[in-house]
């Protein structure tokens, strides 16, 4: 902060006559036009527009015919939407817990001064470079009941073996989870590893001098110290989960049984671009925004609230 104000002081003192406000930094303002348009028109304007139009009865085309909370009432009475929300909650909690716990444990293992660390990291992270479509299709094939894991085990002689998560409404979320974890844990591991490497070596020396066992040092000292890393990871993973769409499209298309693995993003897409019921799509996407804000606002408060005035 002080450096910037110093620079400003130098800049203003070197200019003999202060120019009018608007003409300062003209090139900079022109260059920033795409950013300003994106921020104001698309991000802010687009969001407000959709929220406003979610209170209309728009069907094929958006029409400013306001009907209050009708769309929301209809939304929350739709079985498909309720299933979507329930699925997102179950999948989200499981996915968050597993990615963070597995990511942290893998990072701890990688932090034991092991050999071939780069090789291990390359292997664990490569799925993250692949799209959800590719991820979903590969796991759909591996989980194929006839030829995949189930088929292979049955061929070995265990003929009653059943492992067919994608065709069973009760277990389909676990099928999605296996693929989702495969794609995402390497990334969380990298974030956690960076956090572990950021911790002062002296902490470890002090813990060793005091004779605290390694696992206890991790639980009592290191994890509390890594709180910011955990919070950032949770926010990134959570905001990704709320958007979950491609993986479901590729693996199950929302099935089995019609809507066993539906998610909110799918509901929005179908109503906005397929069923020509824009009002429902707008209302559903506004609910998605609300769920993100529930995650985001406490985080922003924790992260920036104290610093701004400091």
């Amino acid at each position, binding site marked *: 902060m002080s450096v910037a104000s110093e620079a400003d002081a130098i800049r203003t003192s070197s200019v003999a006559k202060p120019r009018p406000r608007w003409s300062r*930094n003209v090139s*900079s303002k022109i260059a920033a036009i795409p950013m300003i348009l994106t921020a104001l028109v698309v991000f802010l*304007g687009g969001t407000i527009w959709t929220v406003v139009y979610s209170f209309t009865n728009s069907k094929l085309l958006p029409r400013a015919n306001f009907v209050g909370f009708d769309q929301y009432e209809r939304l929350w009475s739709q079985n498909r939407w309720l299933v979507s929300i329930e699925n997102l909650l179950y999948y989200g909690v499981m996915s968050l817990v597993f990615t963070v716990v597995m990511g942290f444990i893998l990072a701890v293992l990688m932090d034991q001064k092991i050999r071939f660390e780069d090789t291990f990291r390359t292997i664990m992270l490569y799925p993250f470079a692949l799209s959800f479509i590719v991820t979903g299709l590969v796991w759909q094939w591996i989980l194929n009941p006839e030829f995949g894991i189930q088929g292979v085990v049955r061929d070995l002689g265990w003929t009653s073996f059943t492992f067919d998560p994608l065709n069973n409404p009760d277990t389909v979320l676990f099928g999605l989870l296996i693929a989702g974890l495969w794609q995402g844990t390497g990334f969380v591991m990298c974030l956690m590893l960076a956090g572990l490497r950021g911790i002062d070596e002296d902490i470890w020396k002090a813990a060793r001098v005091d004779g605290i066992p390694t696992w206890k040092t991790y639980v009592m000292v290191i994890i509390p110290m890594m709180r910011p890393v955990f919070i950032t990871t949770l926010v990134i993973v959570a905001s990704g989960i709320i958007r979950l769409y491609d993986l479901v499209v590729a693996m199950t298309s929302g099935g089995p049984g019609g809507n066993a693995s539906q998610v909110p993003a799918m509901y929005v*897409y179908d109503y906005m*671009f397929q069923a020509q019921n824009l009002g429902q799509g707008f209302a559903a996407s506004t609910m998605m*925004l609300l769920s993100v804000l529930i995650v985001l606002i406490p985080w922003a408060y924790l992260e920036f609230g104290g610093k701004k005035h400091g």
Partner: protein
Amino acid sequence: MADLSMSSAMTGPRGAKPKKAMSPRNIMLYGILIVVCVYYLLPLWVMVMTSLKGMPEVRIGNIFAPPVEVTFQPWVKAWAEACTGLNCDGLSRGFWNSVLITVPSVIVSIAIASVNGYALINWKFKGSDIFFTILIFGSFIPYQIMLYPIVILLREAGIYGTLWGLIVVHTIFGMPILTLLFRNYFSSIPEELFKAARVDGAGFWGIYFRIMLPMSLPIFVVALILQVTGIWNDFLFGVVFTKPDLYPMTVQLNNIVNSVQGVKEYNVNMAATVLTGLVPLIVYFVSGKLFVRGIAAGAVKG
């Protein structure tokens, strides 16, 4: 290693006793890591092996087993003959569409975001930080809420359903993360350089092209990796903002594999899947640690 010169004066080896390579701890540690790696590598193995088998072998064989008879027929079919709807010219169409989408999107988005980052650090103006904050918050908002307004904007501009429309969309949604990336990088360049150039009479663009650009090639490479993989892997924007003729590779792949018509040719499906994953995988293996830096940039806040 530092006490090598003193070692002649010492009577015995110093320091901690070297750990045995085969200690129970190490066996556990490497054992777990290797099991984990098997889980990570298995899908790649299955994908490639299935794509090299003929359909009869897929039906009777084990998906984990390597092919008895290697055939590249599924690859040829996936590339040039697989059908989506009425078109039967394979994934090659999607591949070229993806190239046509990715190349300009990457260039435009990086160009705009790097100038943004530069303006935000060196040429602050009133409100610039507010726009940046909106941008960053915008990156967490679900895309779904902005989809329809963007459809309207693109329709008004007359580019809805065209490749240019999709390029604009990728530029918009790539802007938050890239601007953050460039802003953080430029803030680490000493301000004295900027001031010296100002004294010498260089303006906004002069400093950008002569000083900032040459000094920040690594971050441009990071941005390139981030954007190429991100845009290549996109599915949602491809579905929403283009017409079937212009579908990118991911969308076409999904349509080929998940189509309900006809007999399922698993080997062709897997060949198509490998082909679609090939570009990001090559980028990933070539870029190595820069990829890690790119994804970590999303997590590091300035």
